[in-house]
C-alpha cells in the first residue's frame, strides 16, 4: 500500500481512554492510512495525538477527532513535536523512547541505544557493575530511595542460592502511572535492567509482579519476554535466565517489598518484619533484589553512559532524573522527566500549565496516597529526596496531584484514612487498629460530632502510627491527614461541636 500515509497513534491505555481507540476503529478500514501504534509521549492533555513524519521530525495533531483526518492527510494544521513546550523542556533519558517506538520492536529499541548497557555489563565483572552503580548514586525510585548499589552488594555477597530478581510492577500509588507506561511502552528497557542486575548478583530467575489493574501491561510484557527469549537474550553466561510475569489481586500493600514477596509465594500479602532484608533472605528465603520498574529501567543507561554521567545530573543527594506524574486539577496532566532540583512551583507552572479552567489552587499532594499535602506557600520546595525529608515529606514514586478550591479537606482526610483502613495488611497493631480509629474520628468530625480533643487524639494517634508501624503504609498514613489539619485548620475547626 504505497499510497497510504503513515500515521503514528499511541496504544497506551490512557491514550486509548482519551480517544485513541476510537480513532483506530474509525480509520482501520481506510486504504489511505497506515496506522502505527506506539507508546505515548505522556502529554496526556494532548491525547489522542496523531503524528506524521516530516523532513524536520514528527509533526503532531492534538486532541484529534475522527473527522480531523482530511486535514491530517493534507498535512495542514500540525505542530512540530519539538516545538511543544511540555515535551521540549523535559530531559528525557529513561522515558526517551516514549512516543517514538513500537513497544515490541526490539530492533527499534536497539537502534535507539537499547541493549548497550547489557553489552557493557557482560564486559564488566559483577563487582565492576556494582561499582558503576555506586558511582552513579542511583537511589531506588519506588519510594524508599535506598542506594541501589548497596542492596546489590548485599545480595551479591549473600550466601546460598538460587538468587532472584523481582521487578515491583505493583504501581499502587494513586496518581502514578510511569511504571505502566514503561511496561506497556518500553518493556525491553525493564528486561535489560533486570538482566544487568541478575548478572551483578548472580541470580538465576526473574519475576515481574504486575498488578491486576494493568492488564494491557501484562500482555505487552509477556510478549516482550517471548521476543527477548527468541532473540536469546534471556541468558547469562550460558545459563538460562527465565523471567515470569505474576499477577497481583488488587492489594495495595503488596507494593511493599516484603508483602510482595509473600504474595509472589501465593500467600496472603502480609508484611514481613525486617531484618532480614530481601537482599539477604527474600523470595522463598533466598537472596532477592526487589526494585521498582522505574529503577530497573534507569539502569541500562547508567551502564552504557557510565555512572559518572548519571551522577552529573540532579542535586547533591538526588542524582539523575525523576519521572514526575502530574494529575488532578492541573491544566496539563502528564509525564514529566526532569533532573532533580526544580521546585514544585516550577514544575506546576512550567509543565502543569497552571490550573484547569475554572479551578483555583488549594493544595498539592506529592508521593501518592501516603504523601504530604502542600498549600500555596509551600511550593518553593525543591524536588529532591533531602529537601523533602527535611520537610517531613516524601517523593514516593513521583505522583503529583493538585486539588482545587472545591476540595473539602475534611472529606479528603477521611478518604485517606479510609484507604489505609481498607488496605492495611493487619500484621501490626498501630496500622490495623490505628487506621480504623483514625477513620472513625474523621467520620465523627465530618458528621459534626467531633471536638477539639478529637484533633489532639488524631495527632497522638498519628505519632504512634508513624513511630510504631511495621512498614510505610501505617508509618506514612498519618502524613496526608495531619498536613491537611496543619494547613487548613479552619476547615476542621469549623466542623467541630462547640
Amino acid at each position, binding site marked *: 500500500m504505497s499510497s497510504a500515509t503513515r500515521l503514528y497513534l499511541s496504544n497506551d*491505555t*490512557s491514550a*486509548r*481512554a*482519551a480517544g485513541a481507540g476510537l480513532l483506530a476503529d474509525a480509520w482501520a478500514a481506510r486504504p489511505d492510512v497506515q496506522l502505527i501504534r506506539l507508546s505515548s509521549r*505522556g502529554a*496526556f*492533555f494532548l*491525547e489522542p495525538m496523531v503524528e506524521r513524519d516530516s523532513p524536520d521530525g514528527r509533526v503532531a495533531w492534538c486532541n484529534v477527532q475522527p473527522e480531523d483526518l482530511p486535514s491530517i492527510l493534507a498535512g495542514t494544521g500540525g505542530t512540530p513535536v519539538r516545538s511543544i513546550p511540555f515535551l521540549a523542556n523535559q530531559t528525557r533519558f529513561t522515558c526517551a523512547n516514549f512516543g517514538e517506538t513500537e513497544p515490541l520492536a526490539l530492533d527499534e529499541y536497539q537502534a535507539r541505544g537499547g541493549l548497550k548497557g547489557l553489552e557493557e555489563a557482560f564486559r564488566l565483572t559483577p563487582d565492576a557493575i556494582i561499582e558503576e552503580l555506586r558511582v552513579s548514586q542511583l537511589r531506588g525510585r519506588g519510594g524508599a530511595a535506598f542506594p541501589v548499589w548497596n542492596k546489590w552488594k548485599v545480595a551479591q555477597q549473600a550466601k546460598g542460592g538460587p538468587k532472584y530478581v523481582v521487578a515491583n510492577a505493583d*504501581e*499502587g*500509588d*494513586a*496518581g*502514578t*502511572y510511569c*511504571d*505502566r507506561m514503561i511496561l506497556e511502552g518500553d518493556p525491553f528497557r525493564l528486561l535489560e535492567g533486570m538482566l544487568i542486575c541478575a548478572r551483578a548478583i548472580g541470580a538465576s530467575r526473574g519475576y515481574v509482579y504486575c498488578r*491486576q*489493574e*494493568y*492488564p494491557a501491561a501484562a500482555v505487552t510484557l509477556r510478549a516482550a519476554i517471548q521476543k527477548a527469549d527468541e532473540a536469546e537474550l534471556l541468558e547469562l553466561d550460558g545459563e538460562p535466565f527465565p523471567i515470569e510475569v*505474576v*499477577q*497481583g*489481586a*488488587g*492489594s*495495595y500493600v503488596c507494593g511493599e517489598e516484603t508483602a510482595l514477596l509473600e*504474595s509472589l*509465594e*501465593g*500467600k*496472603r*500479602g*502480609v508484611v514481613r518484619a525486617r531484618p532480614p532484608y530481601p537482599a539477604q533472605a527474600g523470595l*522463598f528465603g533466598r537472596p532477592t533484589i526487589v526494585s521498582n520498574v522505574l529503577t530497573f529501567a534507569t539502569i541500562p543507561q547508567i551502564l552504557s553512559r557510565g555512572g559518572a554521567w548519571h551522577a552529573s545530573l540532579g542535586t547533591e543527594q538526588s542524582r539523575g532524573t525523576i519521572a514526575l*506524574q*502530574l*494529575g*488532578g*486539577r492541573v491544566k496539563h*496532566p*502528564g*509525564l514529566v522527566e526532569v533532573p532533580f532540583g526544580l521546585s514544585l512551583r516550577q514544575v506546576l507552572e512550567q509543565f502543569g500549565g497552571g490550573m484547569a479552567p475554572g479551578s483555583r489552587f488549594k493544595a498539592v*499532594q506529592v508521593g*501518592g*496516597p501516603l504523601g504530604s499535602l502542600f498549600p500555596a506557600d509551600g511550593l518553593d520546595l525543591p524536588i529532591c529526596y533531602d529537601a523533602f525529608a527535611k520537610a517531613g515529606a516524601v517523593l514516593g514514586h513521583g*505522583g503529583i*496531584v*493538585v*486539588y*482545587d478550591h472545591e*476540595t473539602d479537606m475534611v472529606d*479528603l482526610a477521611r*478518604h485517606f484514612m479510609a*484507604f489505609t483502613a481498607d*488496605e492495611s495488611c493487619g500484621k501490626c497493631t498501630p496500622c490495623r487498629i490505628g487506621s480504623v480509629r483514625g477513620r472513625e474520628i474523621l467520620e465523627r468530625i465530618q458528621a459534626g460530632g467531633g471536638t477539639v480533643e478529637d484533633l489532639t487524639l488524631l495527632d497522638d494517634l498519628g505519632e504512634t502510627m508513624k513511630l510504631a508501624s511495621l512498614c510505610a503504609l501505617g508509618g506514612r498514613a498519618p502524613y496526608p491527614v495531619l498536613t491537611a489539619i496543619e494547613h487548613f485548620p479552619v476547615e476542621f475547626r469549623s466542623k467541630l461541636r462547640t
Partner: protein
Amino acid sequence: MHEQVEKIHRQVRSEPPNILKTLLALQEQVGHVPVEAIPEIAHSLGTTTAHIAGVLSYYPDLRVAAPGRHIIRVCMGESCYANGCGRVLRALQDRLRTDVGETTSGGKFTLDTMSCAGNCAVSPTVLIDRDLYGRVLPSEVETMLERYR
C-alpha cells in the same frame, strides 16, 4: 468444579504450590471462587482449608460470589477524587439503583470501586469489564451504560 480444580492443578503442579495463582486461575475459568471448592483446592495443594480461605478473603479481586454480567469499577484514586469521581459514582448509584459492592436486581451490572487504574492523567476513570473510560462526566454515565444493553 472438580474437573476445573484438577485441570488447574495439572497446570501448576510443576511449580511450588501457589495458592494465589491457583485461585486466580480458577476465577478466570469460573468467574468466581466458590467457597465449596476450598476443601478440594486445599487437598490438591497439600495445605489446609484455613490457608486457602485466608488467601481468598485477603485479596480484593478474589470473589466468592458470581458477579453481574458486567463489572463496573469506579476509580477512587486521588487524581480521580480531585476530578470529581464522587459525582460519577453517585450518578452510577442513582442510575443503577445499587450500592458499591452490589449487583443490580437483574444480575446485569456489579458496581464496585478501585484504588487506582493508573489513568490519572485522563481522570476521572471508569472501568467496565475491559473497557477503560477517561475524563468521564456524570452526564455521560447513561450513554456509557447503553453500550452494555
